[in-house]
């Protein structure tokens, strides 16, 4: 098996964790391609939350996101024999997820209702932001968190599909510009430009919750 470091661009495997992950993925993919169907479950368990997160943040509806995540894994399973080592498995999987979601969003352009997952107010990321924004506690804090969550999701849904995708992949999922460019099949400059514009729009929408 060719190690990922020899195949993938250096920027994509910059971190040692990402490199290890890519190597492990390639090994599992090779097993699935050899006919070991059960090995695909390992990939599903490794990526299901991340793929669901991307789709959920793009579509803003948990039921649709669950269906699309399942479909994404089925598509990956069906076409895994076509997967080659030019890209990391997760980039390939993300591309399937994003393309499926974009197709779904184009089909149901008029339908826009949110069905959100519970915001874990005790998670370190949320706790820090909520502490900075409010002095309330208990039920009032939960109400404020819910209101902020709705406003945030609403603002995200107001972005165009492409801008929303860039923001989701960069700010929420933590991909870098090059990875996003690869997933979205566009240039890095386009990614940066879209990201800048999307943040400007979000700043205008969420101004009451920002503090300088």
């Amino acid at each position, binding site marked *: 098996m060719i190690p990922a470091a020899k195949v993938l661009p250096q920027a994509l495997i910059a971190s040692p964790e990402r490199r290890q992950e890519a190597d492990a993925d390639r090994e599992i993919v090779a097993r699935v391609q050899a006919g070991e*169907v059960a090995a*695909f479950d390992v990939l*599903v368990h490794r990526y*299901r939350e991340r793929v*669901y*997160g991307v789709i*959920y*943040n793009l579509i803003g509806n*948990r039921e649709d996101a*669950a*269906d699309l*995540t*399942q*479909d994404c*894994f*089925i598509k990956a*399973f*069906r076409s895994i024999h076509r997967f080659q080592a030019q890209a990391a498995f997760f980039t390939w999987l993300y591309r399937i997820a994003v393309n499926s979601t974009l197709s779904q969003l184009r089909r149901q352009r008029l339908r826009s209702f949110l069905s*959100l*997952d*519970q*915001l*874990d*107010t005790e*998670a370190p*990321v*949320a706790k*820090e*932001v909520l*502490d*900075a*924004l*409010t*002095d309330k*506690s208990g039920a009032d804090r939960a109400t404020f968190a819910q209101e*902020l*969550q709705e406003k*945030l*999701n609403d603002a*995200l849904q107001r972005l165009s599909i492409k801008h929303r995708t860039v*923001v989701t992949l960069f*700010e*929420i999922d933590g991909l870098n510009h090059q990875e996003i460019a690869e997933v979205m099949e566009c240039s890095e400059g386009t990614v940066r430009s879209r990201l800048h514009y999307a*943040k400007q729009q*979000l*700043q205008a929408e*969420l101004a009451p*919750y*920002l*503090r*300088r």
Partner: protein
Amino acid sequence: MKRPSQRPVTVEDLLRLKRAERPPEAFWADFDRGLREKQLAALLPRRPWWQRWAERGFWPAWGRLALPVGAAGLITGLFLVPRPGGESTATLGVVARNVEPVPAAALVAPGTEVSVPDAPVAPHEVVPAAVASPVLAVAAAEAVAPADPVRATAPARAGIDPFPVTWASAGGAEAAMAVSLLGGSRRIEPRAATPRAVVEPLQQMVPPGERRGARILTAMVSMAAVEGGPRATDRVASRLSEERLYDQIERFGARGAGVNVRF
């Protein structure tokens, strides 16, 4: 009550809140179950179309249509499937070639008076010149076959007026042509059209003026029939006398191609 911290809050901070939106653990159990089902469905070979139709409830609807559609199919099949022992064009051709030319004089009915020369009539004299192909020759031979007494007398009249004979043979030829066209290539059961009665074409023609006048009269009669009810009531209402009524009717008439109205 604690005070909010004074650290700045940016868009990036707010977006990071989205990382804290997570589905409950039970969600993943359902997710895995659903994914397993879809995965198994993807592994199974695609079923044939009739099984998928059965799943969608097509066959109960088909059951209502089965009888009429089946009957229609059977009838169509009866028309299209050739009979094993049926006559084809080739057979007819053989039969036709075996028909010997019959002198016209021999076909004359015993009591008929005909002033025909004694010389036998050759087939080419009976069959029109245009009918040169074997098929049409067959038709001509059929036309003079003694099975039909009307046709049998036709050659007898040929000596006097050859035109009817020509038309009769052409009528038979038309039927034979249809047989050859339909039955020759696809072996469809030949159904020769029944030959039409021989009528002089000029006798069939009706002068246009007479035809138009007849049409107008028909229209007037039908209008009178339609207006019969109301007119009777009108009569009762206005108490018209019989003479006056007929006088009014007689004011309208048709002659030739026109309509007259007398005032």
